[in-house]
C-alpha cells in the first residue's frame, strides 16, 4: 500500500492528531482525503465547520443563502462584526480558509430543494445538518437515505440540544424513524421566537464535528442508534435509543416513499419560490 506523504506544513499543522492514538497518520490521511458538507453557516454550522476545517477535512462545503445579521453574532462564531450584511457563505468561506488555507473550501450559496439536493450532496462523503426547519430536515434525511450517505444531525432550542448520526444501511434508523411526522405548523416555535442560549450551538455543533470526524476515521462509536440530549441549564446529558422502524416509509421493509416529495406540503408550510 502506498501512502501519500504529508507535507512539512501538514506534519506541523496536524502534529497533535498525527501523534494521537486513535487518529495517527492514517486517520489524518483519511481526513485529508474526505469531504464533508455542512448545511448552514449559522449557530450549529459555525463550530462544526471551524473544527472540520482545522482538522484538515480535505474538501469542506458549506450551504447557506442568508446574509450575516447583527443578531447572529451572539452565537454564530464563523462571522465577525465587519461581516454584518455580507453573504454568510462568503464570510464563512473566507474565515474557514483563514483557519486552514491548505484545504479546499466550497461555498454553496443556495436554498436546498428537491431539485438540487442530489447534485449538491453528490461530491460529499458526509452530510452535517444544521438546519432549523422541518421541510429541509425531512428533505435532507430522505436525500441522504436515498444516496446512502451518513447524516450527522443536530438541533437546538433555547437551552436544550439533540444530536445523533443516521447511517443508511440494513435496519438502521433514519430521522423519520425518530419523528415520523412533523409537528403541525404553529405548535413549535422557532429560535427566532423562543430565543437560544448562545453557547448551546457551540456544544451541539462541536458534537456534530466530533461525529463527522469519527465517521471519516472509523474510530470509536458514533451516536448511531442513540439520541444524545443535552440540557445546558441542568448541565446534563441523557441518551435515548433510536430504533429502526420497520414501517418507516423511507427506510422500512416496504418503503412507500422512494423519491423526493414536496416537503413544504408534507410539513404544511407554504411553498418556497425557487
Amino acid at each position, binding site marked *: 500500500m502506498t501512502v501519500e506523504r504529508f507535507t512539512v506544513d501538514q506534519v506541523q499543522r496536524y502534529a497533535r492528531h498525527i501523534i494521537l492514538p486513535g487518529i495517527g497518520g492514517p486517520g489524518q490521511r483519511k481526513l485529508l482525503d474526505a469531504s464533508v458538507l455542512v*448545511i448552514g453557516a449559522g449557530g450549529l454550522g459555525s463550530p462544526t465547520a471551524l473544527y472540520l476545517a482545522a482538522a484538515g477535512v480535505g474538501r469542506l462545503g458549506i450551504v447557506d443563502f442568508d446574509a450575516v445579521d447583527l443578531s447572529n453574532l451572539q452565537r454564530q462564531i464563523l462571522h465577525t462584526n465587519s461581516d454584518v450584511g455580507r453573504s454568510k457563505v462568503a464570510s464563512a468561506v473566507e474565515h474557514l480558509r483563514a483557519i486552514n488555507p491548505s484545504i479546499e473550501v466550497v461555498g454553496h450559496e443556495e436554498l436546498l430543494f428537491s431539485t438540487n439536493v442530489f447534485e449538491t450532496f453528490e461530491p460529499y462523503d458526509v452530510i452535517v445538518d444544521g438546519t*432549523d*426547519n422541518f421541510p429541509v430536515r425531512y428533505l435532507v434525511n430522505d436525500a441522504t437515505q436515498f444516496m446512502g450517505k451518513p447524516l450527522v444531525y443536530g438541533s437546538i432550542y433555547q437551552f436544550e440540544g439533540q444530536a445523533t448520526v443516521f447511517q443508511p444501511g440494513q435496519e438502521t434508523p433514519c430521522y423519520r424513524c425518530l419523528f415520523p411526522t*412533523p409537528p403541525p405548523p404553529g405548535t413549535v416555535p422557532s429560535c427566532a421566537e423562543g430565543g437560544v442560549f448562545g453557547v448551546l450551538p457551540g456544544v451541539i455543533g462541536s458534537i456534530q464535528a466530533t461525529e463527522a470526524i469519527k465517521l471519516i476515521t472509523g474510530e470509536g462509536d458514533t451516536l448511531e442508534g442513540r439520541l444524545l440530549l443535552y440540557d445546558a441549564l441542568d448541565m446534563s446529558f441523557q441518551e435515548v*435509543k433510536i430504533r429502526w422502524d420497520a414501517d418507516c416509509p423511507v427506510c422500512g421493509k416496504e418503503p412507500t416513499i422512494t423519491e423526493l416529495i414536496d416537503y413544504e406540503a408534507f410539513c404544511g408550510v407554504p411553498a418556497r419560490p425557487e
Partner: protein
Amino acid sequence: MPVQVKLPTILRKHAGGEPRVSAEGGTLREVLQDLEARYPGVTKNVFSEDGGLHRFINVYVNDEDVRYLGALETEVREGDTVSILPAVAGGERSTASPRMRKDEAPLG
C-alpha cells in the same frame, strides 16, 4: 408509585419552569393523566385527537421509546424516568430555509 418526569423546555412553563417533576401511576397513561391534573395544559400537545400519542412527540420510559414498548399502556415502576421529547427545529434559521424570506412570518 412516583416516577420522575423530565419536561422539555417548551413544556416547562406549565410546571412553574421546573425541568423535572413527579407524577404517579402504574402505566404511562396514568402518569400522564396525573401530570395533567397537577400541571394543567402540560400534556395538551402530547395526546392526539384519537387519544393516542402524537407522532411528532416522543415519550421515553428511561431510554426506550414507548412506541416500542406498550405505548400508553407501558408499565412504569418507581424510580423510572419518563421523558417527553418534541421534535425541535432549532438550528440555522436562514439555512436553505423555506421560511427564511424576510417577508414571511417565522415558523409557528
